[in-house]
């Protein structure tokens, strides 16, 4: 627990490292992080127009839905996939400097929030370009994003701990994430499904996506989505902190 408290005092390190990593990653490219923006724009334009024709749905609602879904999925799956190697990738820091371990998941989250900020304009351009109204309700996406981010933070710490001990988790996650993408409402909305809408709500990723996408598309999220997030926050952080408390001294030996 002291580790977490110390991590709060290291905000400067977290912020610096996140920006420094984004910078290092795009060091020798001309467009840098704008490649993310371009990729998202290209992907949603291509998929959006072909699928809206294929499924005979109205492009004005379908393409913004898909764009928001893709952007949020990149954010969520990016954090989960990378959290499997969260500690082993930072081994050179963990094995040489006495820094709180909790700075690593925070840094990972911040880095993906920076990427998300690069992608978000695509949604607004697509929505406005197609004439889909952006209402004041869209502001509700921000508290939604905060709830989502806090949930992803414990998830990253939890997966990071398990992944540092069991190296299979990395490959397992790489295999499962594309499958999860298909059974999560990325390309569609839960209410598009005629029969299995209630089944898809058993998938936590549906809640992760919809808490932000509902307000973006103009209506507040259903109250049960918010409740699920709150329950996950309490239970998730509880379990993660218990595990972290027991195991964080061992992580330096695992990485």
């Amino acid at each position, binding site marked *: 627990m002291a580790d977490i408290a110390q991590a709060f005092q290291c905000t400067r*390190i977290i912020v610096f*490292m996140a920006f*420094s990593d984004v910078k*290092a990653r795009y060091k020798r490219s001309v467009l840098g992080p704008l490649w993310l923006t371009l990729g998202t724009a290209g992907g949603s334009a291509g998929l959006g127009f072909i699928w809206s024709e294929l499924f005979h749905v109205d492009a004005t609602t379908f393409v913004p839905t898909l764009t928001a879904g893709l952007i949020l999925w990149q954010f969520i799956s990016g954090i989960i996939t990378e959290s499997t190697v969260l500690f082993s990738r930072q081994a*050179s820091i963990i*094995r*040489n*400097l006495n820094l709180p371990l909790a700075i690593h998941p925070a840094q990972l989250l911040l880095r993906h929030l920076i990427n998300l900020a690069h992608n978000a304009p695509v949604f607004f351009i697509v929505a406005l370009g197609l004439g889909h109204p952006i209402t004041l309700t869209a502001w509700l996406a921000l508290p939604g994003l905060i709830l989502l981010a806090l949930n992803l933070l414990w998830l990253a710490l939890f997966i990071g701990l398990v992944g540092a001990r069991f190296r299979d988790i990395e490959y397992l996650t790489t295999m499962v994430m594309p499958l999860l993408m298909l059974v999560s409402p990325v390309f569609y909305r839960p209410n598009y499904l005629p029969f299995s809408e209630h089944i898809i709500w058993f998938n936590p990723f549906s809640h992760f996506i919809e808490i932000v996408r509902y307000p973006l598309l103009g209506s507040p999220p259903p109250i049960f989505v918010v409740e699920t997030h709150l329950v996950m926050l309490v239970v998730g952080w509880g379990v993660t902190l218990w595990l972290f408390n027991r195991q964080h001294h061992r992580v330096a030996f695992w990485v």
Partner: protein
Amino acid sequence: MAILKFDKVTVQYPIYNSRSMSLRNQLVRISTGGRIESEAGHIQVVTALNEVSFGLKDGDSVGLIGHNGAGKSTLLRTMAGVYHPISGSVVRQGRVATVLELGAGMDPELSGYENIIRMGILMGLSMAEILSKTKEIEDFTQLGDFLQLPVRTYSSGMATRLMFAVATSTAPDILLVDEVFGTGDAEFQVKAKERMEALIKSVGIFVFASHNHELVRQYCNRVFRLEHGCLLEVDINAI
């Protein structure tokens, strides 16, 4: 005021082979009871430090000697607070800086200057402090224009210079240095010696692991010998 006190410190670490690192074997182990347990779930435990006790205070400069695998690096990491003992207590007061592994905390894609900032931040300095020390680091490393190049282009000696310069410029109370230090050339060794002597004078604890007894005699006033995880203080003139 630097203090470093170990009381009966025992450090054990697990060696996971590919089998015990694998989740499948853990699951098989649960599902098959004890039958193949010896093969699937076996984790070797190495006792790297065995009831190590000592006390260091300001002005102590310690040379750590011992065979490969005697526990020198583990002891340095335990001193730094990276490894935690399973029993015994460690008392540490003062800011610690480490030069343990080459390239620790550096990003090979970033330039020398950017890495100075990166390592400085990691070691807890503020941006203003780092900028005020950059000139001094430039002078010490004598890397000149190389500091504008990415660190991946550096030789190991150059990287050592940079690491050592940043680590010592943080004005640590406790400086822990592993053997990597030996990769610097003669000129660097001379400058490093000056810097270290100044540092030891300006209160602080210095611990240096090396196989080079000559260097140990130059820098240190106490010598610890590690053998199979047990620590023994020896007379500096006896090595």
